[in-house]
């Protein structure tokens, strides 16, 4: 009977649709995530440290073409099941690392969220099972994709703090999917500090490194 059961329980990877073979300890303890080892390998996680305005940050992936295509399928093609691809394989480590922090997602373009039916950033970071508050609000709907480097630096004036939340003496984990120029991060850090956050850290899925040439042509190159 057990043999029959074991044979029936073949899981397919949510990213490449092949059967998962559990051949490492890491994949075994994260078996409910349903992402195979090959897909994790191709994504090339690097866990890069960086600093924005003196605040420590961590990016999981480099912004390579593989991650970019997966992000495209998740965000633009609205493939909801792919939400576990980016962060969930490392959720045990991260929920330990950021124990006691409150997750604050960067506000995003509202019309896209409505059309999609979910907020893509919140869905990714739900798997950490930390407390999450959406205390940052965008007062105006602006697509950063359409702005150039200098225009992006002024994104902060459209951010507002929702005063019904109290974050005094709290530890805050700022999260986002892709950091391109860091402008919205800078604005969010400024607002959170003004409202009395004790400690801030950043966690992002991937971070782009822009050369000067790319900064100039940022508007013409579509981000996703």
């Amino acid at each position, binding site marked *: *009977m057990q043999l029959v059961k074991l044979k029936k329980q073949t899981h*397919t990877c949510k990213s490449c*649709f092949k059967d998962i073979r559990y051949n490492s300890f890491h994949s075994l303890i994260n078996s409910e995530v349903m992402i195979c080892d090959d897909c994790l390998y191709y994504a090339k996680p690097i866990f890069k440290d960086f600093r924005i305005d003196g605040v420590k940050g961590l990016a999981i992936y480099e912004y390579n073409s593989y991650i970019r295509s997966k992000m495209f*399928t998740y965000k633009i*093609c*609205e*493939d*909801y*099941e792919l939400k576990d691809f980016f962060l969930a394989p490392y959720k045990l480590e991260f929920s330990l690392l950021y124990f006691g922090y409150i997750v604050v997602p960067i506000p995003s373009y509202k019309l896209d969220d409505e059309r999609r039916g*979910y907020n893509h950033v919140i869905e990714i970071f739900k798997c950490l099972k930390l407390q999450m508050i959406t205390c940052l609000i965008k007062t105006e709907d602006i697509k950063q994709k359409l702005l150039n480097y200098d225009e992006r630096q002024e994104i902060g004036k459209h951010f507002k703090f929702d005063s019904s939340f109290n974050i005094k003496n709290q530890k805050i984990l700022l999260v986002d999917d892709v950091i391109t120029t860091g402008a919205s991060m800078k604005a969010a850090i400024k607002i959170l500090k003004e409202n009395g956050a004790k400690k801030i850290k950043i966690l992002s899925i991937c971070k782009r490194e822009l050369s000067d040439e790319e900064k100039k042509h940022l508007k013409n190159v579509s981000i996703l």
Partner: protein
Amino acid sequence: MTNITELISNPKNINKSSLLKESFVCPVCKNSDPKYIGYKNGQPYCRRCISFKGDEVDLINYHPPKNYEAIISYPLSKEQERIANEVMVSFINKQDSLIYAVCGAGKTELVFKVIEYALEHKLKVGFAIPRRDVVIELALRLEKTFKNNIVSCVYGGNTSLLNGDIIVLTTHQLYRYPTYFDLLIMDEIDAFPYKDNPLLIEMFKRSVKGHYILMSATPSESVLSEFKKPNHQIHTLFTRYHMHPLPCPKIIIKFGIDKYIFLIQKIKEYEKVNKPLFIFVPTIDESNLLYGILKRFSKNGNRVNSEVNEREEIIEDFRKHKYSYLVTTAVLERGVTLKNLQVIIFHSDHEIYNAASLIQISGRVGRLYDAPDGDVYFLGSKTTKGMLDAISKIKEANSHLQVVL
């Protein structure tokens, strides 16, 4: 044992979600495989065709074609004319057809007559091919033939003009045309990525409103068996348009360093008589390795594989006789016509080569009126079934030619 029988007899043990999964069928690609079905806010959706999203063609801006004249710059052979008429008749009789013709038979010219007929009757015509390079080349050719019509070319990255009298497109763009084409012609049906891809095959069926014409030099058994049904017609053309037989490949068995010596000898030989040479290799690594060795002996060459970005320029230079040989992977397997081309298939006993792909590669040789012959060598360390099959099929096609003559 009792537990198993219980499980089968008692349907309550199957949980509800699996039942929901089984009942959902994707409206776009007709997929019902539970592994491709995801859930968003409790609603099932298909994940297999999710990346096929974009502007679909709008019927409001559609203008029926005004002209329908085909200008063919050179005359068709008698055989070609016969098949072209047959294809047209079976289209008028509302039949789907398969054109099974050898490489270099002039398949594309066979359908000009049908296209002309369809345009005359204000029907929507599409021409789908799996490969992008071939789409661009064919669009130029159709523009020359149908000078008074709008030929729109649709492929990934060039999707601004979806409407047109004749639409030439890659198979990946077919999702933009649901139940649109009255006549859809499909070339190279056995090429990657269309071959054995259930999603693209479903998209193809979805976009046909009227009837379709498939063309191939090496159709698979499943396609041939499908065309045995009623309302399906197979047209065979086993002669090339210049009425010369297909060059028959020669098997050369060599081991180790002998293979390379043979290659270098052949390169030198063809260099003297100024004939271009293709050396096909099975993998990308192999192409880099072999070119690294060969360039020490003859600097007058280059290599092409899917990772080389300046592929088009290299091929263009090769056409201008800048290089005397080219080491290539299967990227140049289709759609290349060069005068006096010679072909050597290196490691022809490799597992990626089957009879179909060997026939395709052999078909690169002798495609022109003034150079109807050439050499094809299978260079390997053993004879495989694929190699023997390929040779016997080519010989069979050549024996048809004898009957005609």
